[in-house]
């Protein structure tokens, strides 16, 4: 509880910073104008450009944080995460397919494809997890799924007739929350809310899974139902994130990892703080992407990967020791 309060305060601070600072440096007078007249040019920068972007980063980060925490609990593996397991890649690939087919302009089609891709990969991962009990094996399957998802996307580009679509989709796939406005976010709120609800329902099942499949199966909890809820919830959150911001890796890995110790490692109690931590991380990562001076703006997915990949190696290092015992 206390960790959630601290993280909520941090999130507010991060959002504030994100709105106040960006590519365009403003003078003190301009800030004053912005707050006095929100429709003035500086006001537009703050409230129509930066604010939705910051909120979008927080939403996506929160969704990925919960999705990561749920996948880790479900698969009993601290390395599980939508990006690592290929769920994001499949989601993106399905979305790229409908865009390449020219269906992208119809309302809800890209979103539905992203959700469908995430669900398919999630179901596959769950089936593999039931079959192979070693945590290392599962990560290897995730690597294969991610590679396959990436290859499918590349194939779609190769076969796509329109170069403009390609450029558009490619930039989206690298992960970004640039130029998102409130209207982009609204339709994703429904799958995200549904995903959070399902994950919250599944939380007690995740806690029981700490003891393994067999003990959980005999614990009296409706494990089959809870497992499906967890999987569907994580897939909904991942799909909605991909539809909104493309592929952003490692937030789902880092967020639960950061908060786990402060909730006594309880997978059920990890969910809420993981959401907040994910939101803070992605808001700050996006701020970083904007304020680091560079010719072209850094991609958010690139920033998270730069920090996330070494963290992945670190967690793997630690996990490998505990798996041997």
């Amino acid at each position, binding site marked *: 509880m206390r960790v959630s309060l601290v993280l909520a305060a941090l999130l507010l601070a991060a959002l504030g910073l994100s709105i106040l600072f960006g590519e365009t440096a403003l003078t003190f007078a301009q800030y004053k104008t912005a707050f006095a007249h929100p429709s003035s040019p500086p006001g537009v920068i703050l409230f129509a450009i930066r604010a939705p972007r910051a909120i979008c980063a927080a939403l996506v980060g929160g969704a990925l944080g919960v999705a990561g925490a749920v996948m880790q609990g479900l698969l*009993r593996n601290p390395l599980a995460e939508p990006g690592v397991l290929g769920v994001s890649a499949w989601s993106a690939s399905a979305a790229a397919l409908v865009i390449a087919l020219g269906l992208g302009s119809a309302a809800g089609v890209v979103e539905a494809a992203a959700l469908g891709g995430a669900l398919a990969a999630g179901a596959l991962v769950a089936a593999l997890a039931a079959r192979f009990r070693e945590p290392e094996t599962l990560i290897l399957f995730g690597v294969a799924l991610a590679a396959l998802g990436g290859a499918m996307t590349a194939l779609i580009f190769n076969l796509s007739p329109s170069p403009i679509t390609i450029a558009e989709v490619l930039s989206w796939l690298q992960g970004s929350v640039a130029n998102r406005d409130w209207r982009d976010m609204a339709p994703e709120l429904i799958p995200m809310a549904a995903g959070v609800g399902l994950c919250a329902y599944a939380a007690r099942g995740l806690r029981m899974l700490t003891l393994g499949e067999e*003990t959980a199966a005999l614990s*009296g909890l409706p494990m089959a139902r809870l497992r499906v809820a967890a999987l569907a919830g994580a897939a909904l959150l991942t799909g909605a994130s991909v539809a909104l911001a493309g592929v952003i890796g490692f937030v789902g890995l880092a967020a639960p990892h950061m908060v786990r110790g402060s909730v006594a*490692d*309880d997978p059920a109690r990890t969910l809420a703080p993981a959401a907040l931590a994910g939101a803070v991380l992605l808001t700050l990562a996006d701020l970083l992407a904007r304020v680091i001076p560079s010719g072209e703006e850094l991609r958010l997915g690139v920033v998270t990967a730069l920090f996330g990949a070494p963290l992945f190696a670190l967690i793997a290092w630690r996990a490998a020791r505990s798996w041997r015992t």
Partner: protein
Amino acid sequence: MSARLTVAGLRVVERGRTILDSVSLTADAGEVLGVIGPNGAGKTTLLRAALGLRRVAAGQARIDGRPLAELAPAARARAAGYLPQERRVAWNMPAIEIAALGCADLAAAEARAVARGCLAELEVAGLAERGVLDMSGGERARVLLARLLATRAGLLIADEPSAGLDPDAQFLALERLRQRALAGAAVIVTLHDLTLAARACDRLAVLCEGRMRACAPPAEALSEEILAEVFGLEGSLVDTRAGPTLAARRRA
């Protein structure tokens, strides 16, 4: 005495290989039943099949007289508790929280009170707040056994409850299970230590290559003939001041 678990004509086949064949078994309230046999005899498979964790090719298991299929998850959890052989715990949760998972049916505070009592029974109350991955394997095994006791089920099934425990803790673990039997539960344990099995169990079910070779009180189930045939040992149970003790060597 009432039968907590009845297994009749159980047959389990995996990839064309018969792992269990026509195994029948009853565990009554108040008794400790040991399942023994060499590696690969089918002990764990028998327990898992009896609990419905594994598909059976033939036969039936009844818990408290009711077929497994008729029991809803919650009812089955109230009737039977299981300690699997696999002791891997995914997260470093404190021992008290792990033990409290045994009573998912109770409110959190109540569950913790029960869990605390069970940890104390296994003499690990002092470790209640410590993460289970920060303990030795034996300490963790005691915490997991406390989780089993916390289920308060009428049928307690423990797969190798003594594995990884020091000699004193092995006796302690079986003593606590015996207390549960005295309080009216049926207890089923698999054991590799035949001396421990002979002392702790009322009856021993001897499995050999998927078949029930004998099911009788220890003196009978561990006859010289069975020791030789099933376990490949030359020797016998000897009565000592501490109880029956296996004196045996490998058969030449």
